[in-house]
Structures are given as C-alpha cells and as structure tokens.
C-alpha cells in the first residue's frame, strides 16, 4: 500500500495547566490520497482538536503527525506555516472569509500571503477557481455582500486554489440550508473525484456522513470506529 498522506501516531492532547483535561487519547489514524472521509462524534468529543492537529494548527502533547511520511514534530512555526500553505486547505463552518476583501482576493490569500507579492497568474488561478465553483460573476463582490452558500463556495475555492493533497473541513455545511449544504457537499465531492484531493470533513449531519467513503467516529478523545463505506457516493 502507498505511504499515507497523513499519519497520526499515538496522539494525546491535554489542555490546562492546573487542571488538565485530556481532549485526545492515544489516537492513531491514517489518511490516504483521494480519500473522502467524515469525522463524526458528539460535541466535545475531540473532533475539532484532532482536525487542528492534523491541520498543523495545533501541536499534540504526545505522539506524532507525519505528512507524506515526514515527521512534523520537530518543525518550527515558520516551517509549519509553509507546510500548511502548500499541503493543506481549510474550510470552516462560518466560512471565515476576510469580509473587507473581494471574493477573488479571498481566493488569492493562500498564495499571496505565502509569496508576499501578487502575480497575474495568482489572480488568474483564483478567477478560474471561482468559475469552477460557479461564482465567476461574484469575483469582485466583497465577501460580506455574498450569501452564506456563496461564501462557503468561495471558502472551498480558497481551500482548493493551490490544489493541496488534503482539505480539512470543519462543519462546512453546518450553517447552511439544505439546498446550499447539498451544493457545497457536491462541490467538495467533485474536487475529490476530479483532482484526487483528500477531504476530511467534521460533521454532525448524518446525511453528509452517510455520503462519505469512510466514517471515523471519535468519542471522549478516542477513535471508536473507523468504517469504510465504499460506494457511499452513489447514495
């Protein structure tokens, strides 16, 4: 079998100094290229903590996270930022766009923020992504002037603009009506199929989870089940 894209090995995450709360307990998990997985569990079970650790936004108290087989535990903040910029895309529940910026500027952010100076290519790629998500006509709209569904599509375009091998989505449909949620889900599914980008989607929505290829359940900081659901996309 090929090298996993992400390997989580024995990860423990504690919070607090005086009173320690264990959010993750000895988690092992592999994610492979092209996977489309849901991460489910009750509130406070550690889903977001695990997503932050896989997304290199947080460091485990114990254990390791390997990206393409390389251990990230020894990397400093600058190296983690660069790795995050080039290997990972993020989609958040509340869209989290920069509201004072236009849709196209938001999509350019990952490349622009990393490189420093903008290029025409960056802008072209961002416009192409917006066309891909059906928002070419909204490119110059400020983020705050877009609807919830449109903002989430801009967020997906931003996550995909560098064609990262993995996109981490934290409740991406949690704040949308059913129609917009379906649109957003289909969009992620399409990118997964077309560019073999892996998706790890944290969700409370059983409808969304049931349409993923793999469902990982986490309870009290432990992975309690990890079920492949081949052919789930057809449902």
């Amino acid at each position, binding site marked *: 079998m090929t090298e996993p894209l992400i390997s989580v090995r024995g990860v423990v995450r504690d919070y607090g100094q005086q009173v320690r709360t264990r959010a993750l307990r000895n988690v092992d998990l592999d994610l492979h290229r092209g996977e489309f997985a849901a991460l489910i569990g009750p509130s406070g079970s550690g889903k977001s903590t695990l997503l932050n650790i896989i*997304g290199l936004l947080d460091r485990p108290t114990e254990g390791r996270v390997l990206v393409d087989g390389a251990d990230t535990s020894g990397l400093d903040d*600058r190296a983690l930022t660069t790795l995050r910029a080039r290997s990972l895309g993020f989609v*958040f529940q509340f869209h989290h766009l*920069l509201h004072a*910026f236009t849709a196209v500027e938001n999509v350019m*952010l*990952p490349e622009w923020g990393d490189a*420093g100076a903008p290029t025409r290519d960056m802008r072209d790629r961002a416009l192409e992504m917006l066309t891909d998500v059906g928002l070419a006509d909204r490119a110059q709209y400020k983020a705050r002037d877009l609807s919830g569904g449109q903002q989430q599509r801009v967020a997906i375009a*931003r996550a995909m603009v560098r064609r990262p091998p993995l996109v981490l989505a934290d409740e991406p449909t949690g704040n949308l009506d059913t129609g917009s949620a379906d649109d957003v889900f289909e969009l992620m599914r399409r990118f997964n199929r077309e560019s073999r980008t892996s998706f790890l989607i944290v969700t409370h929505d059983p409808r969304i989870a049931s349409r993923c290829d793999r469902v990982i359940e986490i309870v009290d900081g432990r992975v309690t089940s990890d079920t492949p659901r081949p052919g789930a996309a057809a449902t």
Partner: protein
Amino acid sequence: MPFQWFVAIRYLRDARGQSALMLAAVSVGVSVIVFLSALINGLQTSLIDSTLGSQPHITLRVPREEPRALVESRDGVAIARLRQPAAQRLRSLDQWPSVMRALAGTPGVTAVSPTISGSATATRAEARVPVVIRGVNPESFLDIIDLRRDIVQGTFDVTSGRVVIGSSLASELGVGVDDRIRVTSTEDVEDVVTIAGLFTVGTDAVDKSWVVTSLTHAQSLFALPGGVTNIELKVRDVFEADRIADVIRGRTGLTVESWMTLNAELLSGLSAQSSSKTMIQFFVVVSVALGIASILIVSVVQKSREIGILRAVGTPARRVLAIFLIQGGVLGVAGSFIGSALGALFAKLFEAMTADASGVPRFFVQVDLPLLIGTTLLATAVGLTAAVIPARRAAALDPAAAIHGD
C-alpha cells in the same frame, strides 16, 4: 502591492471610524507640537536676535589691572596689608593686529573687528548726557553688528567727523540728522561731531548711549593713537560662543567674554522654556502613542478570527506583524502631514491675530523645514512604536484558538 501593505491599507479603509479616530489623534498631537514649537522657537529666535543685534558674540579686552603691593614682605617681618582694587584706565590691546590675524583663523569665527569702547559726555546747548563712544572700522564692524538695518533717519556714515547715535540719545539731546554735538571723553579730549544718522536697535541701553564713530576718531578722543581697547568677534553658531571663548582665552591670556556669559539670565530663561517645550511634547507624544496603541489593540481583538484565518492559510507571523506595524506607520505619516499643516496654519493665524495695529506681529512664529521634517519623523516613529504591542499580539495569536474565538 505587497501583501502586508495591501491588507494594512484595506483594514484602515474598512474600519473608517477607527482609522479617522487614530488619524485625528496623531494630527492633533502633531499640530500641538508644531504650533508650540513654532511659537517658542520664534520667541527664542527673536529674543536672541534682539540681544545679539547690538552686541558681538565674543569680546576680547585687556585684563583688568591688579592692585600692586606698595611694601613687599620680608623674612621675619609680618606685614598687614589693605588691599584695594586698582583704578582702571583705558588701555590698548598689545600687538592687536597679530592677535586679530590669529583670531580670524580660529575655527567657527566668521568676523573679527577692532573697536574702541570708552565713556564720554555729549553736550548740546544745556543738555549733557553720559554716552559710550564706539570707535569702529565700518567694514568689519557691520559684519558683526549690522547697524545699517536699524537706521531710522539719515545714513550709516562715520567718516570725517560724522557719527551715528541712538534715537533715544538724540531725543535726550534734542538733535536730529546733520545737527552737531560736542563730545568730551574721559581723557578730557573734546570734539564737535556731526550726526549722520540715528538708529534704533530696540535695546534701551544702546539706543540711549551709543555714539558710533570711526576707529581713528575714537583713538584721538581717548588718546590711544593706533590702539584698540576691544576685539569683537562673530561666530557661526551662536551657542558655540562659550566654547570658542574658552579656546581663545587659553590661547591669548586676554579677558574674553561671550554673549552667553553676559546674558546668562536670558539663556537660563530660554533653557527653561525649551525644557517645558520638551515636557509638553513628551506628554503629547505619550498620549498620542497610547491612543494609537489602544485603538489598534481593539482592532487586533476584533480581527483576531481573520488573523487566525490568515495564519491558517499560510501567512507567516512576520507578515501579520508587518500588517499592524504598517497601519501604525501609515497613520503616523498621514497624521504628521495633516498635523503639520494644521499646526503651521494655527501658528500663522496666531501671529496675525496678535499683531499690533500697524500689522507688526507681537509674537513671531518660526515654522521651518527642520521642524516639519523632525515632527514627521517623530510622528512616524510614534505610530510605529505604538503599533509594536498590538502587532506582536496579532503575530503571536494561536491560529486554532483565534479561529474558534477562544
């Protein structure tokens, strides 16, 4: 446009209310500094100008005569002495032409002039007024004290028995241009001179007592053929006068006085003024810095989620730091331009409003380029410094915590 500049300017434009508030804080602060500095600098310059309008920066004169003992002590004999100050008489400086040549080459000295300064009495009909005879070499004297610009009647002409006198003295004697007066020196030499011009330098002691004549005429009045009593100097930087005087004193052994020693009270007044100006500037700078810093910190808190997103999608911490430093710097520069313009305008308005009936300002304000450049640099530095804490706070935000609003 580089990323950090683009984001900084977009944030400033987007939060118009906050930006306007910070800009107003910097502008008001800068305008206060410019206005205050213009006023105090103008006042100080005009005080120094009027003081130095009638006196040289440095004067060399013969050392005072010391009392001589009439009886010397001997071994085994105790002598009680009564020491009395020696009577002073007008004496010429020894070898003054060679001293002058040496002084002309002293660094910082821009003009050297030999003069005679002695007491006399001026008489016209029944009026007898004590005066100071100033015997000068017109070419070099005018380089040091330019009486020509203070002439209110007639011309500056001290050739062939002609003199220029202070306007108050003329009024005491009841004379005008082309009138003649008799002068009697302390050496009991008398002469009749013709008044060629009247001057008003603005210093009462000078306007009331000076009779300016040629050096040769003064030499004959004080029986000092070929001699001079003083050598007067002008220096490039007036505040260097004390230091240069020390150098000359060490080199010549003569009595050397600088305008700074003679006007110590004025200087301590000016220095107190400068200190209060600095204190006011300091407090203005601190309050402006606190204003900017607190508003920027609020901005960082408001934008912490966006900062978290920027960090999450790959913006390095140093660029986040730069975004907030740039905001502080831009506000500093913009505020300093607006504040400088306002301060200069207020200063000029104040000058015009406080002018007397004939339109001559009572307070001179001095708005010059170094003041404006200095204030701009100061305001930019204040803006940047004030932004350091908010910027560091923004750069240190934990992206995961910021995104989740923890």
